[in-house]
């Protein structure tokens, strides 16, 4: 066994500014935001060989997964094949959790495409560009996410 190189959880006051520097750096290198929604869209376009696909976004998509794999491997828990969502699978059967996650992700993807960005694209990169559209989108999803979480929390009697 090797000693974990990363703390169990990098504190916000390191991760936040580090993310801010990455956002600034990507603008300085590629003149592009560090978003995720566009990466999904262009990865699908690249894989399906649709005309006009932005192929570098597919590399960026792979990069996010690669970086996540490296980070997971350097923590104490390490890379671990598992179902995930322990909190939900403790309450409901795995099949039910899978359906909830799938349907929820469809709603999330639809909304992200309509809004033109997600938590990273609008929530960090757009707000950092001082875009009114991004500030509006971020306030909208923060408010609806907190409200939805609390509605589910209260409907499930506090178990989720």
């Amino acid at each position, binding site marked *: 066994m090797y000693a974990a190189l990363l703390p169990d959880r990098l504190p916000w006051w390191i991760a936040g500014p580090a993310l801010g520097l990455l956002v600034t750096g990507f603008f300085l290198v590629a003149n592009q935001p560090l978003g995720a929604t566009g990466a999904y869209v262009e990865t699908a376009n690249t894989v399906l060989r649709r005309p006009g696909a932005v192929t570098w976004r597919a590399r960026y998509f792979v990069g*996010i997964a690669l970086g996540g794999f490296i980070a997971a491997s350097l923590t104490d828990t390490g890379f671990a094949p598992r179902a995930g969502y322990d*909190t939900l699978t403790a309450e409901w059967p795995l099949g039910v959790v899978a359906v909830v996650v799938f349907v929820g992700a469809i*709603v999330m993807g639809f909304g992200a495409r309509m809004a033109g960005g997600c938590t990273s694209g609008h929530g960090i990169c757009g707000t950092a560009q001082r875009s009114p559209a991004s500030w509006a989108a971020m306030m909208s999803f923060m408010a609806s996410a907190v409200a939805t979480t609390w509605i589910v929390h209260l409907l499930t009697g506090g178990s989720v």
Partner: protein
Amino acid sequence: MNRAIAHKLAGLAFGAGFGFVLGAARLHEYDTIHDMLLLREPDVFLLMGGAIGVSLPLLWLLERAGATTLLGGRLALSRSRAQRHHVVGGITFGVGWAVVGTCPAPALVMLASGAGLGAVAVAGLFVGLRLRDVQTSRRAVAPTVGDGEHHEVPALAH
């Protein structure tokens, strides 16, 4: 080096840096996002605030200085007027985000950390994004390009 290859390498490197920070800060864990949205702990809000707090002033200064980017010409930030679809799309996104407890980039990190349900979330995201594109193409409206997803540099599109 060929500019298109340089762009792909930059994409891979910055994507990896992004995924690394998300994973190291545990943003790919359902519990982290769930505790954030239940307002149990402020860490993720502070993390996002820290990221904006660093990049907003830096980008402002670089824009004012007329900085030239390495691969994409003169630094061009995009600012759009807030429209109805930003709000309606944002609200829709937030509902899904709350249920799934992860958003597009962390879902990918969740999958990369070995969680099988991360693959379900990633698959659902692809379906949802596509559904919106199908809807907009039926209505013959151009899909929205937000600030999150900056206009691409045409010469580097392929």
